[in-house]
């Protein structure tokens, strides 16, 4: 075990993956010698050479196109998109190519080895273009897996599982926690199964559901609610596509209430999909409407970020409103 922050955990996972398989490659803008603008690929070029860890020209569509080709060839590309806000030029390569590669070819070809890593989310005074949480643009795309870790331990285990997984994975890293989240992490390789939610805290009155950096915000709200005597069951979804309906439905069947919180705007966010599915699966068990506490339906603001975000107080109020419905 070692103390690692989330960045270290990711760097460590990449290092281990590259060490055991020389077909694993890391690349993206500033990823090479410099180690990435957040330093998550720090040291890897020195260790594994310029052929396996390198800068690309500044073109996200090129990075993912290139990565698709590499994966089809049998390499294991781990492509970095510098900020999730800049993943959109690669949207066609991801949605029309990555996601459909295996299906359209009848499994003659596939890009299952591909992992796309990208820092997402707010809380760093980044405004419109350094704060977005675009996961819902991908969760509507069959063929992709979408994974979001919440802390260093999860980050390493989920990333190693994503690299091993025979399907393309978009791995969203909560950049606000890169240095802020520190924890015990095994030094050796280990994997956390994709597609399984984690029940973080057991409770009986209401189920709280989230992922990534939002987990600690929800937890803070849960503490406030606890002081009011409300017993919350806290679930980290971890894999958003395909998602673990069963774990969530089982919990809501028990508690009768569900609150989902994410950073992205409310309308069209992934909480909508979850709410739609759970209201169907748990209809007779629901004692209150499923509540969604999310970002406002605007671009991500700068100076009014505090007012904009789904913070612990809004979630706390949401918990109370749901309890008192």
């Amino acid at each position, binding site marked *: 075990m070692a103390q690692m922050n989330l960045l270290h955990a990711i760097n460590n996972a990449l290092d281990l993956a590259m060490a055991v398989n020389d*077909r694993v490659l890391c690349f993206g803008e500033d990823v090479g010698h410099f180690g990435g603008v957040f330093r998550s690929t720090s040291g890897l070029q020195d260790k594994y050479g310029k052929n396996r860890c390198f800068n690309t020209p500044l073109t996200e569509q090129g990075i993912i196109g*290139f990565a698709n080709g590499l994966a089809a060839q049998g390499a294991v590309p781990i492509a970095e998109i510098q900020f999730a806000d800049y993943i959109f030029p690669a949207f066609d390569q991801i949605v029309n190519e990555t996601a459909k590669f295996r299906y*359209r070819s009848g499994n003659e070809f596939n890009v299952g080895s591909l992992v796309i890593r990208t820092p997402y989310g707010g809380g760093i005074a980044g405004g419109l273009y350094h704060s977005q949480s675009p996961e819902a643009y991908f969760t509507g795309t069959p063929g992709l897996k979408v994974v979001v870790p919440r802390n260093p331990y999860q980050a390493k285990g989920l990333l190693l599982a994503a690299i091993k997984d025979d399907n393309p994975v978009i791995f969203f890293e909560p950049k606000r926690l890169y240095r802020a989240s520190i924890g015990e992490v095994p030094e050796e390789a280990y994997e956390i199964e994709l597609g399984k939610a984690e029940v973080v805290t057991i409770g009986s009155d209401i189920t709280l559901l989230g992922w990534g950096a939002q987990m600690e915000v929800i937890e803070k709200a849960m503490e406030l609610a606890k002081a009011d005597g409300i017993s919350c069951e806290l679930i980290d979804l971890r894999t958003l596509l395909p998602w673990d309906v069963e774990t969530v439905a089982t919990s809501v069947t028990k508690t009768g209430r569900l609150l989902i919180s994410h950073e992205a705007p409310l309308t069209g966010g992934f909480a909508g999909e979850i709410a739609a599915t759970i209201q169907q699966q748990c209809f007779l068990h629901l004692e209150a409407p499923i509540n969604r506490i999310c970002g406002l339906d605007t671009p991500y603001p700068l100076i009014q970020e505090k007012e904009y975000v789904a913070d612990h107080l809004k979630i706390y109020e949401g918990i109370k409103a749901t309890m008192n419905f």
Partner: protein
Amino acid sequence: MNQPQQNIDVVFEPQFVNKDTLRIPTLKVLQQDGTLYPNAMMPNIDKSLALKIYDTMVFIRVLDERMVASQRQGRISFYMTCKGEEASIIGSAAGLSDDDMIMAQYREQGALAFRGFSLENFMNQMFSNAKDLGKGRQMPIHYGSSELNYMTISSPLATQIPQATGFAYGQRLQGLDALTLCYFGEGAASEGDFHAGLNMAAVLNSPTIFYCRNNGYAISTSIEDQYAGDGIAPRGVGYGIETIRVDGNDCLAVLLATQKARAFALENNKPVLIEAMSYRLGAHSTSDDPSGYRSKEEEDLWAELDGVMRFRNWLELQGWWDQAQETALYDKYRQEVLAQLKVSEKVPTPLLVELVSDVYSDIPTHLQQQLGDLRQHLAKYPQDYPKTSGEKH
């Protein structure tokens, strides 16, 4: 970093450079009558390769002709011919090794046929039947074969270009004696993916042959509305890529250029851009009618330059081909195509499970559920889903 201002060319008058600054010539070998240009250089070709090329040309002519007819009869839903570009497509494929990956746009069935894709495979794909390697999921002509190193066609244009860069980079890292050839149209070359793919290949030393089929049109859009430069070739120079332009109706010139490109790319771990100048003699697809956007005269002008005829003329001058062989070959392929067509259109559709397989490497829970629900539904209304209702689950 940029060179500090020394050892660079300097001027003191503000002159623009423009497309006239760089005119890229066209490589030629064969004249239309089948004789070589006086100074022509020959590609590496012997009788057996020459006959294989010509055989493929005839096969594709027949296939294209028959399948357009089948589409008109409503037996298949869609088709695209490569008429006019056979010399360009088959000549370039002939310049490769079988280990090289081919990533094509959609009009390159000639390359696939040259690789040995069977008539049965072609036909099964077009009929989306249970024997289609692609499991009936894509429109006709979206072929692919892992065994033959021919990447499955994808309709979104130009996406295969940066993919080819990545594929070839992977080949190089593995130390294979193989590269990737990527076909695309001059229209597709306007997409951002073109720019990304070529620039990355140059910077990352990826042994990729970018083969631009400049055939004058992108559906109805002529090159005047597509670009204002001297074709696509000068862009290669801009990226620092070795570039060559070739007469696409001149099969020997195409073969020569591709052989040189392959040797250069593998020796130097660098990309090459080939621009093949030709003309799409047929309609864009069976959904298209070119009379709405171009003249018969223009088409006739190009028909006279037909590359298949030119190559045949050369073969005859070599004493390798004659009219009797010609007639026999056309007859043979016409019969084979018709026969296979009748067989393939009777093969049943793929099993229902193929609707949800291959989305992921395994069928995940939610898709298993959706498949189960669907089966129940179909069982309720067997007469409404005739293709799948007979299926034994």
